[in-house]
């Protein structure tokens, strides 16, 4: 799973969000290291919707601007969970080999 996909699904995991809120949330999740471009965000949202990983929930007009909200789908949740397990397994292996026991930190 590519990082933008992972971050978008993560940002939607605890509830629905609209475009700009997603960009801010992703920046927060990644400690400010990932600033998703608006164009990149919408091509990703388009792709993820087509793949059934996220769903469009509602449109709302605020100050003349359209805000379109999305939420994660059941399939998206399953996929994210699967990815988290995969990453965890890799992390555990790396920690073990580096001698970084969880208790030591």
């Amino acid at each position, binding site marked *: 799973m590519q990082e933008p996909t992972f971050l978008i699904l993560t940002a939607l995991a605890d509830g629905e969000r609209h475009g*700009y809120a997603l960009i801010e949330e992703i920046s927060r999740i990644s400690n400010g290291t990932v600033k998703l*471009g*608006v*164009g*990149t965000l*919408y091509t990703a949202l388009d792709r993820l919707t087509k793949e059934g990983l996220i769903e469009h929930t509602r449109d709302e007009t605020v100050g003349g601007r359209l805000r379109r909200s999305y939420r994660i789908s059941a399939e998206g949740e399953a996929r994210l969970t*699967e990815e988290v397990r*995969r990453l965890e397994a890799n992390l555990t292996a790396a920690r073990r080999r580096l001698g970084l026991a969880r208790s030591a930190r």
Partner: protein
Amino acid sequence: MATTLERSYRSLLRLFPRDWRQLHGEALIGTLLDAAEARQAIRPSAGERVDLILAAAEARMSSAMSAAQRSLLCAVSAGVGLALVVCSAAYDLARPAWLVHAGVGLSWNAAIAVVGAGAFALGWLLPLAAALLGYRRAAIAAWGAFELLVFVDVMGAVLHQQWVFADPTSALFAGVLSLGALAARPRWPLLAAVSISVAAAYALLLSYVETTAVDPPDAAAVRLFRSLHFYLWAGALNFGNLAVVLAAAALAAICLRIVGHRKTSALVIAIAVPWAVAWAATGAGTHEFLAHAQVVMIMVGAGVAASVVVRGVVVHRHAEAGRTRRV
């Protein structure tokens, strides 16, 4: 009461395909304005423009071709490219007597005479391998180096009217590998566009140089095209190159058929048949014909094998990475 900022964003929005705009346009503008307000911007930043241009290119590309089609294209172009490389290497190393005796100037022997098949192969294989494996920076660097080589070559040909390592087959080859670039990394529309324009410019320039500086080969197809004033392309349509193009078409048709794209396969064959007839008619009964026919068959065989292997590798990578990687 749209502001200047909004008008700038809307003009950038026009780069996206119509369907996409109808679906996401207003939400995109809304988000752009939200983001601009947050940083108190009055005009789109350079980074934002680039991001939107790339996103628009990707939206256009993915509406034209699905991921499966792009991976198929990648496999076919890899197959065609590999076949060219294998054949040029084999020819260079073995210089089979029956070819030399027939006086066959299969144009790739000129291409490898200077730099050797190895370098020629690496220029194409390295970026493709890096791209397939997901090493984006390495692929960009390797591709950049190859495009630079092509550029130097073109300049050499234009300024000194002589080849560095070029001939029209290399142009064809550059075109094929650009297709590979497009297919392998559809997320890099800019790179693909640069790659394709370089290849196109290369083909045009080489054809021009060959038709003006060198007598064209005496195949009837060339005379026909000269009479039709297709001067630019005449150089690329000699007997040997037509054989390469036909082999590539046959290869593409077979691969498309293997993967189940029957209509496209039939279309490719329909386009290639008149050319094959012209090619056979001009060459029938000559030494060259037999020699070329054998080379074409070897090339198609090598290409199909390579396509199957590459497709296998791509599919295997997907399967190995699990469903999550597909995203």
